């Protein structure tokens, strides 16, 4: 009960900050959250290729720890690599 109340109150209290962040996303035309900065495909997973972790060279192995958290982008409607 206390958790639910705290959650509701926090959501209300954090609403202006959330709006501020959303405005920043709009102004800077951002596409990703800044969660993992160690590799391109973990910094911007939405913009990465589906094969991103293995793109550096043939038989390249995924070696960034955050790569084990970040799943490849979901199958895109117009995904192709000319």
């Amino acid at each position: 009960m206390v958790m639910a109340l705290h959650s509701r109150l926090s959501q209300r209290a954090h609403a202006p900050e959330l709006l501020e962040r959303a405005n920043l996303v709009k102004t800077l035309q951002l596409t990703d959250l800044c969660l993992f900065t160690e590799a391109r495909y973990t910094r911007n997973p939405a913009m990465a290729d589906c094969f991103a972790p293995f793109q550096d060279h043939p038989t390249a192995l995924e070696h960034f720890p955050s790569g084990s958290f970040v799943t490849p982008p979901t199958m895109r409607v117009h995904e192709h690599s000319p």
Partner: protein
Amino acid sequence: MNTPLNRHGNILDFAISSLLRRRSKNFSLLVVYTLIVFVIASLIFFVQAMKREAGLLLKEAPDLVVQRMIAGRHDLIPDRYKEQIGAIRGVTAVTPRLWGYYYDQVFGANYTLLVPEQKLVEPGSILIGPGVARNQRIQVSDMLTLKTSSNAPLLLTVQGIYPSSSELISSDLIVLSAEDFQAMFNLPAGYATDLAVTVANPQEQTTIAAKIAEQFPDTRPILKSEILRTYDALFEWRGGMMVVILFVAVLSFIIFAWDKATGLSAEERKEIGILKSIGWETSDVLLLKFWEGIVISLTAFLVGVVLAYGHVFLFSATLFEPALKGWSVMYPHFKLTPVIDVYQLTILFALTVLPYTAASIIPAWLAATVPPDAAMRS
């Protein structure tokens, strides 16, 4: 008055005093149990809050991002694509985006350099994310030196730092002018990193993306819905480390419940024998073990969930930080807005409290069916 409620109350009293008699054993049991619930609940809270945050923030992302692909890799896109895409019916605006990455050799950090659509900074000035300020130990009006692609130093004055509340999106950002971006990377004239496309009717986004892909076969349009889906799937329970953490926690719980289910201690068996010899029915013994199981598992569940809530929402999931940080030097210090997913917590409850309670009843039932004298002698 001997009502069923009184009977349960009396058995619960006896169960608690019985648990307190074996204080050290039950306390260690409670600690392990709480720890398992804590890990799983922390994961649930973290993932749900992150998904919610991503969903709310990335609703403001560009409707469509068009990337150019060469030899299977993302490449710079010529400005002439802008006019042609802008001419497609339903497209309101096409904005070339200039952005890239910069690796700071001194601090070993990766920054994202970005030119805003509207002019927010003059040449020579920058806006930086709180992570960059922390990493570089700089403040407003300080100078930041970046190395250009020709190895020349580029001096930039910090005009402002984004608030720490925006760290989840701006931590590693360096917002600079188009002139400074050009000086940094020496891009060929008339090229951008990608194009942000605004579509008047959200329902037409897929059709317009299809038209772009048809007219420009060397491009890859990424829809806003695909960006949102990527983040929805990012912390999917099936994904990498998540499944490892879940697997380990569930396995520990199974071992733990199995240990409980496979037998009672000699002392507990003797206690059941004594209870039976003084007139307790088998159903009473089972009720006693049921209440003992409920007291332990419910306490562990409630304490574990409350601790997990505090860990994720008050202490920013500090225990997950080393794993999430990986090898990156910068990790955003963000506070997540609390979200409680009743459905997920109910599943956690069903997966932890119920099996444990059932596991504690089965051996008691086996012991309670043995004649009291045999149980006391064992």
